[in-house]
């Protein structure tokens, strides 16, 4: 079972994969997580390739969202949450007490299941993170807002209503706006927690198309309940069950010939 390293041959066989080195963006070592003493993640070891899409799949409660939230320490906000092990971003263990968590979250952005635009204009939503960083020059902001909205495939739909309240956008547009807001601060990594599960099929496909576009610049990790979605968008897939990483392999391999019986049963819809 290949928990470490990547099946580069399989990755490179995908005709649309840009020729880039799939080096490691983030690695997890012997990670254990518990909520009020109840274990939720057990001995997780895995590496996330840079500028690829990695998907986490598994039944509800398997720990996939908990694992994702470890990558920018979102779990810190949960009472009783205890983490041991290491999460290495570049050469830094992000769980060291010296790490600046807001700086970490700028480097590792996150998009949630339910679109959560701020109750302000489309423009100000995207500019928000920049303003927090003290960037207020209008021309500079204009540039980044347009670039981010274009990257999020939303520009053409909102360019004439930048001053409208973001809450007036459709669900799919709101989710793309949140993605634009996330990438405006130029993170290294974007974490997507069920980003399309509250969207209709067309909006879902737009988000998936966007994920494909974004991976040329960002490392993407997506948690999804929709196995076909994982199969469509990701280069690598991790299957988790009961807090453990059962199998981690190239998506091609995992969906055509998984090595573990548990994975096979889950992705083919059999009783576990």
């Amino acid at each position: 079972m290949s928990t470490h390293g990547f099946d580069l041959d399989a990755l490179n066989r995908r005709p649309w994969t840009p020729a880039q080195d799939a080096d490691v963006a983030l690695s997890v070592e012997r990670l254990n997580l518990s909520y009020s003493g109840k274990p939720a993640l057990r001995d997780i070891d895995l590496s996330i390739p840079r500028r690829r899409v990695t998907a986490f799949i598994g039944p509800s409660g398997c720990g996939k969202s908990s694992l994702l939230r470890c990558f920018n320490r979102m779990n810190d906000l949960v009472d009783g949450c205890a983490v041991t092990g290491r999460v290495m971003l570049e050469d830094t263990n992000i769980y060291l007490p010296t790490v600046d968590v807001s700086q970490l979250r700028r480097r590792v952005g996150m998009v949630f299941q339910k679109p959560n635009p701020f109750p302000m204009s489309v423009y100000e939503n995207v500019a928000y993170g920049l303003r927090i960083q003290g960037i207020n020059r209008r021309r500079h902001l204009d540039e980044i807002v347009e670039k981010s909205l274009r990257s999020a495939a939303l520009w053409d739909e909102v360019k004439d209503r930048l001053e409208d309240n973001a809450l007036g956008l459709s669900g799919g547009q709101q989710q793309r706006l949140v993605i634009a807001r996330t990438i405006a601060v130029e993170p290294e990594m974007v974490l997507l927690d069920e980003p399309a599960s509250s969207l209709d099929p067309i909006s879902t496909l737009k988000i998936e198309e966007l994920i494909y576009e974004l991976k040329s610049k960002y490392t993407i990790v997506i948690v999804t309940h929709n196995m076909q979605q994982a199969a469509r968008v990701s280069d690598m897939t991790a299957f988790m069950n009961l807090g453990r990483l059962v199998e981690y392999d190239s998506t091609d391999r995992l969906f055509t010939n998984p090595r573990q019986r548990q994975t096979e049963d889950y992705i083919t819809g059999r009783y576990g």
Partner: protein
Amino acid sequence: MAEQDSHRQHISGQFNQELETATAHMLEMGGLVEKQVLAALSALLELDSGEAQAVMELDKAINAREVEIDDECFRILARRQPAAGDLRLVLAISKVLNDLERIGDESSRIARQAIALSEQAEDVPARPWTQKIAAVVTDMLRSALDAFARRDARAALAVARGDEEIDAQMAGAMTALAATMRDKPEHVEACITAMWALRSFERIGDHARNIAEYVIYMVEGVDVRHIELDAVLDLLPPLSRE
């Protein structure tokens, strides 16, 4: 490699049923094709133009079955988006259908040669060779379909090896037919007809080998097409090895 177990049920009983039905239909068609090959052989050896005619008639039914079962596979792909072992099963069925249909075509060709021979010759030239080759080929076809039904990759690998036996027999048959043509020029036409029939049996062997290769793919997820058989063993997980 995930262990295969056909008793393990889908959460969707309907999906389970669809996979089982498509498999059963393909194996039924396989049985029909086996019968057709045996009937073509009998028509050839007995120089029975009536039986040959029946073989050619049966081909239409086989072609129709191919289209129907392929349609079942398309529907499963479109509606269920099968993954892993299920995906390989549906793809394998669809590919095996293609080979079965072409075995049907070859049987019809043999039947046509049987009719020609019944008008040209008193006996089938190189009869013992024809019998030997046909025996190997029909055994390969039956074993390949059995291996599919039992999801047995090792049995399938043994089937693929039958191809080597056919090659050896074909060389012997060609030498014998050439000798007959030299000695009895009046039998040249019948010998050429017999050669065509042998060539069809050889091709049926090739299709049986293809079916066996799809069984290995279905069971083990390893594509063994265009790979030397000795190298195939290295590709299979240890459990499937001798």
